[in-house]
């Protein structure tokens, strides 16, 4: 009796991504004794999830408003490239202050890239898929040009100063995990509790209704792309100290991973529903699958195939959940 009441209160649709995550973690702990340890799950997996998770939070805004941003991977590479070039050219007198200036530069570059995407979509009235496909190609090419076809690195000295931003811990939590949680909390507040967030969901749900309700649709959409740019910049700020360099593999397929995390988390691809914590669960989910497969000695070349299959299964389950009430 008590159980059924509890079960009714527990909204299966909203909690599905989190239940899946719990199940996956339970499965992982059966597969390998080292899986369910703080050092593996938090220090290793969660920290590595950070880049995709933060970018996916931005993508949650874009997709909840009915948009799409395919350029985030190239944008990350370009932003990282610009930041590294800046750090390189002043590294003689470099220190913590220089790194802070580099971070500001990354944020500015990210915001400008987002603004560009947003303007092409709103002012230029180009389908988001096409608009951001264009900027994806542009930004990737610009990065390759900056790196002269190779890779860009900061000096070892500077890397040593910068590295703790990725490897450091605060209250026992890796800094990247902490940043994900803070960005997630702010994003959830913005999406669920502010008029802007409400407007994002309204525009994604039905643009005509939003227009007839007096919502400035172009401003809402533009801002979602700018938020996406900011999130990419934050991810880059955490990414650069990890290896101290960027190369042609930087940001590759990140857009696909981010979109997958968002959709697995319960946000609708067509817009109107956005789930910030679901997105984080989705990003974590994807990384954990990879981790379990690695720990259980699956051929690394096959990991992608298993991940893809699990994503499709997850979506089929989700669709089943949503169909039932109709």
């Amino acid at each position, binding site marked *: 009796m008590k159980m059924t009441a509890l079960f009714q209160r527990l909204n299966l649709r909203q909690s599905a991504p989190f239940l899946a995550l719990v199940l996956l973690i339970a499965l992982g702990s059966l597969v390998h004794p080292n899986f369910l340890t703080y050092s593996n799950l938090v220090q290793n997996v969660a920290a590595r999830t950070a880049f995709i998770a933060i970018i996916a939070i931005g993508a949650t805004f874009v997709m909840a408003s009915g948009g799409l941003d395919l350029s985030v991977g190239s944008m990350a590479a370009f932003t990282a490239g610009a930041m590294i070039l800046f750090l390189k050219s002043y590294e003689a007198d470099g220190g913590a202050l220089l790194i802070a200036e580099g971070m500001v530069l990354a944020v500015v570059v990210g915001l400008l890239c987002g603004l560009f995407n947003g303007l092409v979509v709103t002012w230029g009235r180009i389908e988001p898929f096409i608009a951001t496909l264009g900027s994806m190609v542009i930004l990737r090419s610009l990065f390759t040009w900056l790196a002269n076809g190779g890779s860009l690195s900061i000096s070892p000295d500077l890397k040593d100063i910068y590295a703790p931003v990725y490897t450091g811990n605060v209250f026992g939590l890796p800094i990247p995990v902490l940043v994900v949680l803070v960005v997630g909390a702010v994003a959830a*507040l913005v999406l669920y*509790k*502010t*008029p802007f967030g*409400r*407007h994002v*969901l*309204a525009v994604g*749900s*039905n643009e*005509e*209704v*939003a*227009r*007839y*309700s*007096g*919502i*400035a649709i172009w401003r809402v959409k533009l801002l979602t792309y700018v938020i996406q740019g900011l999130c990419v910049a934050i991810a880059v700020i955490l990414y650069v100290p990890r290896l101290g360099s960027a190369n042609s593999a930087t940001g590759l397929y990140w857009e696909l991973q981010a979109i997958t995390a968002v959709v697995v988390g319960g946000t609708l691809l067509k817009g*109107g*529903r956005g789930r910030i914590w679901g997105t984080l669960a989705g990003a974590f989910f994807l990384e954990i699958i990879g981790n379990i497969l690695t720990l259980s000695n699956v051929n690394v070349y096959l990991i992608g195939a298993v991940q893809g299959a699990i994503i499709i299964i997850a979506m089929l389950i989700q669709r089943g959940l949503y169909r039932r009430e109709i």
Partner: protein
Amino acid sequence: MEASKRQPEPALEAKGISKAYGGIVVLDDVSLTFGRGEVHALIGENGAGKSTLMKILGGYVEPSAGELILNDARVRFSGPRQAEAAGIVLVHQEILLAPHLSIAENIFLGRELHYGLFTDDGAMRQQASSLLASLGSRLDPRSTVADLSIAERQLVQIARALSSRHSFVIFDEPTAALTPVESETLFAVIEALRQRHCGVIYISHRLDEVKRLADRVSVLRDGQLVHSGPARELSPTDMAHLMVGRALGDLYPHKAKSEAAPVVLEVQDLNVAGRVQGASFTLRQGEVLGFAGLIGAGRTELFEGLFGLRKASGQVACDGHRGSVFASVNQAASCGLAYVTEDRKGRGLLLEKSLAQNLTLSRLQQFVRFGLIDNAKEHSALNRAVQRFDIRAPRLDIDAGRLSGGNQQKLLLAKTLLSDPRIVVIDEPTRGVDIGAKQQIYKLIAELAAAGKAVVVISSEMPELIGLCHRIVVMRQGRIAGLLTGDQINERAIVTLATGTEQQAA
């Protein structure tokens, strides 16, 4: 003829049909017989179960209990295509067409005529064209559905239904989006179907139509069949009583006098490219100003132009604004103007969002504390709106799409009136709304005017305009054809101006 009318052969029979959705019974043991060659009207308030019964007959929904018998054989439909194959077609109330395809492509969607491997576009166009002609329409089958008005789309839907072999045609509120003239064409089609020995099942809220068309009338109330008998034995008033289960007072509230009140809105020479030419009118405080005209006369476009929802030019003067048309709904709202769209589901409400989110959508800034939405304030606003507008919902946390048509309309009105506008434009205030909710909406409009607001009502239902409005502007082909006041207001005068059948000085 008379004999066949009295004793139609029982061709389609529903026996003990029940339907429940998750414990909620929407149809309870309904047994009805639909004969061929007769028009059988099905009436009832929204939520009475008419649409569910229609969906069962049309194969869209399977009953929880009971059976369907067609020509003495038991049938089971697991989808609309099976029902269609058995000769039962349903004309939906909602427009279910692919907007980017042409009329002909829509009519033959899913059963394209083909020529070997390829579609036979020529034949489909030709057949579509003759179908449309039989419905009294001269639409080009090559035009894109997205470019059509709602009434024209409805005609395309009817053409689609009639394009397959049919022995029973179900119409679900077909005239809700049609003007009187277009309705007449539809009535002729229905008469032709009856002559061809088809069975017609007709759902409508317009009881005068039912009285005029139907051979038999069946009344549903709360999922149960409360009456079924020959139409000639019932007056529209009897029908309304059976539907509601109680006596209704006067449908229209008393019209308060409105004289010499100050002008609150003056529109001059408003133009919307291809839709409206040189429209000028004034609106006075405390009056209800009607806008009559055929579908496509430019009434909706005129006001969408005024509110900045489409490109328009013209001069506007009201308290707080003097100059060209408003740039946006927001600018109009800041001058105290509000517009209620005719397209409740497509433009008015977010059907998959909660009642509270819909209510506050255009006025969210009123509900913000320290930059965040104050949910408690939002919910007390919803409670007040539910009280004031009598919005009936099983629970207040459901999505707007789960409300009945009448309650959705009340929610939309509540949403628009949340800004407490001085000037309210209501486009088709009672489309697809049951008679009880209609009466409430009429009362609300009269109360707004009595409270000193100025109200514009755009409507295709003439009794509504005549019952509510102090003055009526009649539009024809994008122009204002005339203005009727006081004793001049009657159906004949409106039709004359709307159709231009007689020359009259404007």
